[in-house]
């Protein structure tokens, strides 16, 4: 079942003519001519579509929170600043089929009553920005954007904004600051963007994938979308699979397949590369907790883990993780978890905006301590120190970057403490090129 990527391999799908030939822009016509904005919102609510950017907050509910005071413009901002290490799905979708996003933007903006909308694209993706600009121009030429769209009386201007080149600009309020031309520092909440967003007006910020899915929902109805998936995880999700698998890439999966099937079936990742075994998985982009092989395949209660929001987070932080933004990083037994944790910690150290003290100082501290451990200069007390620092950062920061920095470190120590201890106790072995600790009796041990 494919929704977003159904026609993605059609040659020239990036042009409006080919996109239309493959059923494109039907949703715009249906929504603007036959439905009221509230009806569109109602369909999205019915679909159970959840935010695809990481938090998994129901899109329809987010839309209904939007404040609608008289005489104040409302805005829809598309968060295309995808910078999470391990996640590259939005990039792929916008690059291959820009009109999928633009169609979703028109439908969503109509539902929200926004007459100006922005797509905030990661600054490094300049060529994608050019593709989007070109596609938007085509849409303007065809009367799908601008004044009085398709004679419905609805006006929409769509702008593409190149990002400020920072991970933090993917946080919704930092994104709005950056969009306004300021330094990308997250804002204190409340007020939430739904009340005071861009230019201090009510704003909805949604991920590319969430917005793109709305046009299919308008075409086929919310119930049809809700029929896909399991429980509260409805519809399909783009997963960016990377790491030691046979077929890395972007896959659109119906939510609810098992993790085992996703990793090993030929339809998806095709299994671990030859001669190697699964050691650990980071299931939703670098900021979610890492899980060892046995925990990612089955939950603590012994059930098979599914690719859904609920099943992946089953067991909380003790034995679970999160679906996050769908950056599925697979590691085999050659991966050193300490080294991997260092890479993540260094990233968050580099990307912390420096506004609030726990994150600014804590990320740097964790990076330095793990760097020491990795380079054979660790102390026994360092492991508990890291756990404590992570605890002091988590939940005490302005934006979720603090949590995102703390979780991978805390989870790596929780599940691979022996590996950290080995690094500290045997620095002469651990610092050798390619040396990896092999847990005795582990499923990945050779």
């Amino acid at each position, binding site marked *: 079942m494919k929704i977003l990527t159904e026609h993605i391999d059609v040659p020239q799908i990036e042009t409006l003519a080919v996109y239309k030939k493959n059923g494109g822009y039907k949703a715009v016509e249906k929504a603007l001519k036959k439905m009221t904005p509230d009806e569109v919102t109602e369909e999205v609510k019915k679909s159970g579509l959840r935010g695809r950017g990481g938090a998994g907050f129901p899109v329809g509910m987010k839309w209904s929170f939007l404040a609608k005071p008289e005489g104040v413009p409302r805005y829809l901002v598309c968060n295309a600043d995808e910078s999470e290490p391990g996640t590259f799905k939005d990039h792929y979708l916008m690059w291959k089929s820009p009109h999928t996003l633009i169609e979703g933007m028109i439908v969503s903006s109509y539902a929200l009553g926004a007459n100006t909308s922005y797509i905030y694209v990661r600054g490094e993706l300049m060529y994608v920005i050019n593709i989007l600009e070109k596609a938007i121009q085509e849409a303007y030429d065809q009367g799908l954007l601008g004044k009085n769209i398709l004679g419905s009386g609805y006006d929409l201007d769509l702008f593409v904004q190149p990002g400020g080149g920072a991970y933090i600009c993917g946080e919704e309020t930092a994104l709005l600051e950056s969009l306004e031309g300021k330094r990308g520092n997250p804002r204190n909440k409340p007020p939430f963007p739904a009340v005071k967003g861009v230019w201090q007006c009510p704003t909805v910020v949604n991920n590319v994938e969430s917005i793109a899915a709305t046009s299919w929902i308008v075409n086929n109805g919310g119930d049809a979308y809700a029929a896909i998936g399991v429980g509260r995880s409805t519809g399909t999700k783009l997963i960016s699979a990377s790491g030691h698998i046979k077929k890395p890439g972007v896959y659109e999966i119906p939510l609810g397949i098992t993790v085992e099937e996703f990793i090993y079936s030929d339809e998806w990742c095709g299994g671990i590369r030859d001669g190697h075994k699964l050691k650990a998985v980071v299931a939703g982009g670098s900021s979610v907790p890492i899980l060892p092989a046995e925990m990612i395949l089955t939950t603590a209660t012994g059930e098979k883990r599914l690719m859904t929001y609920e099943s992946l987070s089953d067991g909380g932080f003790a034995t679970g993780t999160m679906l996050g933004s769908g950056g599925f990083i697979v590691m085999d037994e050659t991966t050193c978890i300490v080294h991997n944790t260092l890479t993540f910690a260094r990233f968050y150290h580099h990307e912390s905006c420096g*506004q609030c003290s726990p994150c*600014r*100082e804590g990320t740097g501290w964790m990076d330095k301590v793990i760097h020491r451990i990795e380079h054979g200069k660790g*102390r026994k007390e360092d492991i508990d120190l890291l756990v404590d620092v992570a605890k002091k950062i988590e939940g005490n920061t302005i934006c979720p970057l603090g949590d995102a920095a703390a979780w991978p470190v805390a989870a790596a120590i929780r599940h691979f403490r022996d590996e950290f201890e080995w690094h500290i106790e045997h620095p002469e072995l651990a610092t050798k090129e390619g040396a990896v600790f092999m847990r005795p009796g582990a499923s990945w041990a050779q």
Partner: protein
Amino acid sequence: MKVTIDNITLEVEPGTTIMQAARQIGPEIAPPAMCYYEPLKGSGGKCRACLVKVTQGSEKDPRPMPKLVPACITAVQDGMVVENTVNESVLETRKGIVEFLLLNHPLDCPVCDQAGECHLQDFSFEHGVSTTRTAEERNTFEPTDLGPNIQLNMNRCVLCYRCVYTADQITDGRVHGVMYRGDHAEISTYIEKAIDNDFSGNVIDVCPVGALTDKTYRFKSRVWFSKPVEAHCSCEKCSGNVTLWYKGDEVIRVTGRKNEWGEVMEFICNTCRFDRKKTSDWVIEGPTQVARHSVISANKYGANLIKPAFPIAQAARDYKLIDDDRDRSFLHEPAKIEAKK
């Protein structure tokens, strides 16, 4: 609206923040603030020193808030119950915040002009621990020259953004901002331009630490050797209400007048601050009120001669109790003495 902070209930106006409500009760209850500065719009929420636990959101919605919230920017709801000094997790988190703020701080108090009136000193003394867990090298910054009046020591900065808000809101043009990210973020002017503005000196007063200090006062005295005196002058640019800091007969420093929370009551101009350093420039009003426990009052005003105000009889009784306690624990335990052999 009714709000309860640390089991003390009071009535406040709608729109009051938890911090403002707590300050109405008194300094024992008020959470520490490193970045919040009432006169500056938009300040607060950054240092996380004032995080408190809300155990009841409001009368209508009594659910507790899931995370600790910054008291300085969280508005009070009717019937809210807040725990500040009585909550273990709040105090534990505060210990962590002190640790984070001191992590890359040079701890050069012995040579810092701010020592004695430094909010970070107070904060770490009240809420921190005396040991360190860090073995890492501290981050240092290249010195930046901000002109003849203001000394910037970026190593001491806690990035409270107060000076940035001051520059934005008090001075005519934005004179400086924050550059770079994370623990490399620093206060700077664009391309090392000197800060030059009639009111730019106020960044010194708002700085909670020794990052921005007065160049004309540099290394002249320790703050507890100087004597603050209220004075005014007729200034065409500002109110002219200042505090003069005397060392002997000499005015060594001019600052704005501060309230009990260390916040400037009126911002003063650079002429008053840097150029009027003769007693004849000023009309003296009298000595500044200084709290008895403040280091600034040490060895002055006969503070060391003041007898405790509480009843002597009670003090004597308390003394005896303490004495009895000592007798019990140390002198009347022969087993302990024997074990030492």
